């Protein structure tokens, strides 16, 4: 395969997908609804509503610049690591799968189908994060991302099934129609929200996102802007009508969102690694969205949608900026970089527009996002407005630190040439941010449409400049002022943030994750050491638990009348004596004597039992028992003769000298004996149930041309048993020859 084919394929997929989705959206959407697994009421129900359109367009639209970037990035990346270009197709295949599953997730209207795409994105991101498999850090980061997102995803599944149990449907539109405020819905909603928060890397699940930065740059760019992390808030938007039924859930979202904004902002201020700064920025920005969903109402949900779409465009460009800068200079830390504006003007300009968008400066589309945020917060109360202000200030500060750190000041490193394909996406995305800053209507239209399915009603989302002193504008001005102030104190502030981050590292959830994983492995090692390694323990381990189970059955069921002594006549005396004799000999067989003695004792038991069978009126059985005992004894002796006498003798001594098990073995033997005793006694105490198989067999024996009823049963009436039995003998022959003769039958 030619090296251009894989990237070209996924690029074409993304482009065509984007165009097709855009066209579909503009022409009013589309819907597919076919049965999938009727037994479980599953449907393949995909619908391009506003919410789906926004996320699907993001997933495909953002993919285009990312894939263009990757085209030039990947060969260089592989070359740097000494890997073959043949590893390219896997990368693009996974990226393509990531995109498709994201689009599917956006479109899914059936909760199980949604879960399928949900986990597919997790799997795709897992494999992409670990694309550099030889890197231990990448492996660990991938595992972390998978464990955090896929395990919490199960909460979504449980929530789904709770809803199914109650409403017997997985279909979201159906659920919105029938669900009412109830504990089930609250619990299910909480579980679904939990999964969403983990996916969107909200506190306390944020740590995986920071680690995931080890992935190749296009992966980070895509994962942070339009896929994976966006999936979390997409889910919140998708099931919002259910969440809305429980005010407590919305309040929880406010708390989670605020905590994430705050932690993310502080961490972004403290990081030195470019991609880390951006990662925590993402985490903080999605905190905004969650916060907005928590605030709720028309303005909250509308603002959330608007926020998502502006963020996707801007954050993607910023990641690509980081990638381009690293490619040009080889450095990836803010402390090693600076003054690149002259060497990389397009990147600088494009990323300036995007950074300004994230920081919500006027003339960029981001400004409206903050206006909407302030508006929604003000509607809820001044406390919320203060929260919003605090976060906006932090965002402005870390974005300023990021951009100025990269592009202003004295140049610290030599900047090499960067391919145009890696620069252009940044420029284009920056331009989009600026144009939309002047003409925000398309963004507003998308957001408005996207908010509709969440509220089940059309909502106006207005993005306009108001040149007056309304509260939103005042808050924005305050943001700029305070942000500038924080940035001015840029020596002290990052240091303080750093201290907070250190504390978080020591006590935070990442530590808990790492320690938990290590503890699990340690526990596993210890349990494994404990696991009964010695073979005899394995046998004991059968007798004791089964003894306990039988004791339970014995204790829990009626005893009186259940155990019959049974009839006894004087004629039975020989039988009883023979049984007693057999039992005594069996006990004698346990004495530590020579092996030959043991074999002969065993044989005596067998012969005694044969006599018992004869007394029971079973000459056939008695005959076979005698023959079998004889052959078994001969085989035993044969095997004894194969083993040197010294070995046998030392074995006997060992048996006698052993101390540790002096009491264990008899005790376990007693338990086993008692178990069988109870089972046989209780089981045989009731004879002659309804069935009369034996009588009917006897009657039919003449039909089978036999006087000997037993032979008739064996050869005819139940010949299938006999056929099975002789096959067992044949298999034993195979086994023996296999073991002793390496498979030769003779």
């Amino acid at each position, binding site marked *: 395969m030619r090296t251009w084919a894989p990237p070209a394929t996924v690029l074409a997929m993304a482009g065509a997908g984007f165009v097709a989705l855009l066209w579909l959206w503009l022409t009013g959407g589309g819907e597919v609804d076919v049965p999938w697994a009727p037994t479980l009421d599953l449907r393949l129900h995909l619908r391009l509503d506003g919410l789906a359109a926004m996320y699907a367009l993001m997933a495909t639209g953002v993919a285009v610049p990312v894939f263009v970037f990757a085209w030039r990035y990947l060969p260089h990346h592989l070359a740097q690591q000494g890997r073959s270009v043949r590893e390219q197709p896997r990368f693009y295949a996974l990226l393509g799968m990531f995109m498709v599953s994201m689009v599917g997730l956006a479109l899914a209207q059936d909760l199980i189908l949604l879960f399928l795409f949900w986990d*597919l994105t997790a799997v795709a991101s897992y494999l992409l994060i670990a694309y550099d498999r030889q890197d231990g850090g990448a492996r660990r980061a991938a595992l972390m991302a998978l464990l955090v997102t896929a395990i919490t995803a199960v909460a979504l599944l449980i929530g789904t099934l709770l809803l199914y*149990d109650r409403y017997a449907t997985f279909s979201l539109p159906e659920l919105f129609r029938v669900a009412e405020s109830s504990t089930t819905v609250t619990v299910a909603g909480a579980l679904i929200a939990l999964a969403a928060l983990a996916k969107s890397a909200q506190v306390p699940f944020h740590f995986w996102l920071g680690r995931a930065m080890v992935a190749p740059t296009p992966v980070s760019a895509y994962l942070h802007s339009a896929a994976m992390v966006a999936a979390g808030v997409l889910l919140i938007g998708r099931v919002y009508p259910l969440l809305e039924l429980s005010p407590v859930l919305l309040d929880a979202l406010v708390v989670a969102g605020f905590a994430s904004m705050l932690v993310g902002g502080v961490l972004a201020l403290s990081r030195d690694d470019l991609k880390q700064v951006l990662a925590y920025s993402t985490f903080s920005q999605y905190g905004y969205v969650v916060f907005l969903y928590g605030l709720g109402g028309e303005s909250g949900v509308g603002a959330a949608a608007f926020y998502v779409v502006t963020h996707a465009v801007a954050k993607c460009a910023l990641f690509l900026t980081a990638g381009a800068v690293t490619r040009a200079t080889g450095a990836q830390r803010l402390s090693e970089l600076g003054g690149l504006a002259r060497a990389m003007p397009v990147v600088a300009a494009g990323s300036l527009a995007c950074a300004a968008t994230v920081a919500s400066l006027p003339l960029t589309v981001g400004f409206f996002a903050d206006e909407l945020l302030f508006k929604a917060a003000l509607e809820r109360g001044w406390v919320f407005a203060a929260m919003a202000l605090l976060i906006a200030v932090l965002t402005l500060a870390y974005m300023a630190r990021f951009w100025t750190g990269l592009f202003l000041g004295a140049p610290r490193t030599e900047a090499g040439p960067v391919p145009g394909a890696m620069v252009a996406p940044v420029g284009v995305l920056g331009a989009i941010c600026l144009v939309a800053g002047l003409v925000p209507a398309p963004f507003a239209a998308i957001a408005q449409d996207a908010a509709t399915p969440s509220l089940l009603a059309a909502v106006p989302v207005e993005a306009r400049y108001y040149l007056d002193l309304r509260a939103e504008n005042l808050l924005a001005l305050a943001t700029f002022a305070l942000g500038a102030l924080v940035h001015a104190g840029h020596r002290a502030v990052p240091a303080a943030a750093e201290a907070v981050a250190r504390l978080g590292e020591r006590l935070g959830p990442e530590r808990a994750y790492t320690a938990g994983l290590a503890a699990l492995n340690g526990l596993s090692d210890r349990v494994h050491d404990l696991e009964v390694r010695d073979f005899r323990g394995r046998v004991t381990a059968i007798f004791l638990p089964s003894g306990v189970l039988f004791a339970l*059955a014995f204790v829990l069921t009626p005893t009186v009348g259940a155990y019959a002594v049974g009839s006894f006549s004087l004629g039975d005396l020989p039988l009883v004596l023979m049984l007693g004799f057999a039992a005594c000999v069996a006990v004698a067989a346990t004495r530590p004597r020579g092996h030959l003695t043991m074999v002969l004792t065993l044989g005596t038991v067998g012969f005694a039992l044969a006599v018992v069978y004869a007394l029971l009126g079973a000459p056939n059985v008695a005959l076979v028992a005698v023959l079998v005992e004889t052959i078994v004894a001969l085989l035993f002796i044969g095997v004894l003769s194969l083993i040197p006498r010294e070995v046998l003798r030392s074995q006997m001594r060992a048996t006698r000298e052993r101390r540790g098990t002096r009491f264990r073995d008899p005790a376990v033997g007693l338990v086993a004996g008692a178990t*069988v005793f109870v089972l046989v006694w209780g089981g045989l105490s009731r004879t002659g149930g*309804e*069935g009369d198989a034996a009588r009917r067999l006897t009657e*039919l024996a003449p039909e089978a041309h036999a006087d000997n009823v037993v032979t008739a049963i064996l050869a005819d009436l139940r010949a299938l048993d006999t056929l099975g039995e002789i096959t067992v003998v044949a298999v034993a022959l*195979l086994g023996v020859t296999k073991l002793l003769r390496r498979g030769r039958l003779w």
Partner: protein
Amino acid sequence: MSLALPLGLVWAGAAVTALLDGRRRCVAWLAVGVLGAGFVALCVLQAHVLVDGPRTIVAGDWPAGVGIALRADALGVVFAVLSMGVLLAGLAYEVVDDLESRHTPALVLFMGAGLTGVFLTADIFNFYVFFELTMVASYAASTYGGERHQIGAGFIFAIVNLLGTFLFLIGLAAIYTVTGTLDMDGVGFALAQSEPTAVALIGVSVLVAFSIKLGLFPFHFWLPPVYVGATPGVAAMLSGAVANVGSYGLLRFGGDLLPDLFAAGAGVLAVLGSASIVYGAIQAISRRSASEVLAYSAIGQVGYVLIALAVGGPVGYAAAILYAIVNALNKALLFLTARVRGWLVGACFAIGALSVAGVPPSAGFFGKVELFRAGIDARSAVLVALIFLGGALSFVYMFQIYQRDFWRDRHDTSGGRALQVPGVLLALVVLGLGLWPEPLLAVSREAAATLTGGQR
């Protein structure tokens, strides 16, 4: 088509193969062909059963209740098809990997005949006979390879399982005493009217016997050395085909013949199942070879079957059956891919790992869905939490071992293309059932309905 045909086909094939040298390619492929034919015949039978309902014949043309009845109902047939399919994949793997022992194809065919008989018989003593046939063939097959730790493991395997078998035999004797018949229908009917003590004792003997077969904690101690020591194909057969006898036995004897007792003892089943889930998963986490992880994982996974059995009812039984199927497929797939290398096999192993963890699109996902449904159906937050915990732990161990084994470039010894085929095919099945789960769901419902008297 007679329902005895697949049984007879494999059985006769086994007898013929036993006379020939199984190391010769043509003989080995003949055995594979016979298994394949048996598999196809069972599939046809399954289609008939699902469309027309169960069919019964009595061997020897004797009246029912006198002769041995063979019955193909939805429950038996699905396990038969599953087991035969796994045997086929396992044997094909071993054949491609060059058989070193001349008896292996014959032993596998005897195992196949035994398993088919176990799943298709409607007579409890005949069940025992086929059960022993399967087990004796497995004891012999487990020593395939002939290394000393394989022999040692085979010895423990045989001893421990024999203890269970004899307990089962004593239980059978008690059943005969109590009911006076061996026919499963008659037994179920009579046991329902019998007094509780004997029934409880019989139930425990059945539970212990099949728990040992399944390798359920605390009856599992034979299992790790056997699965770890066995060659991949044999391990796949033991875990994916022979272990089904345990699940099936619990379903048939517990759900069909002793439903009241199993309902009353649901607590015991749930405790055993939970202990198994947690214990197996914890053990698996730090194991450093794939076969060890899979062995302990097997212990954990059968715990789910027990939990679903404890829930009972249409939902619980369907979940138990579905999970047993999924687990057998997973284990077979994973064992067959664990020791081969190459990107394709890596992908197949990953599919298996995802299936164990219950991630869509894989058959295992629907296993998890049904389990959670059973837990929710039982209104038990504890069960749901336990299934969640077990699933979370399975993520940890499956992906730790996946990364360890497949993401390091040092083990590049690929076993040849043909060796990958059985694993790839099984992976396609697991993936296919994840994408189109309807057959899986419908079959398990149908099979569960045979236990709950048509109630869905």
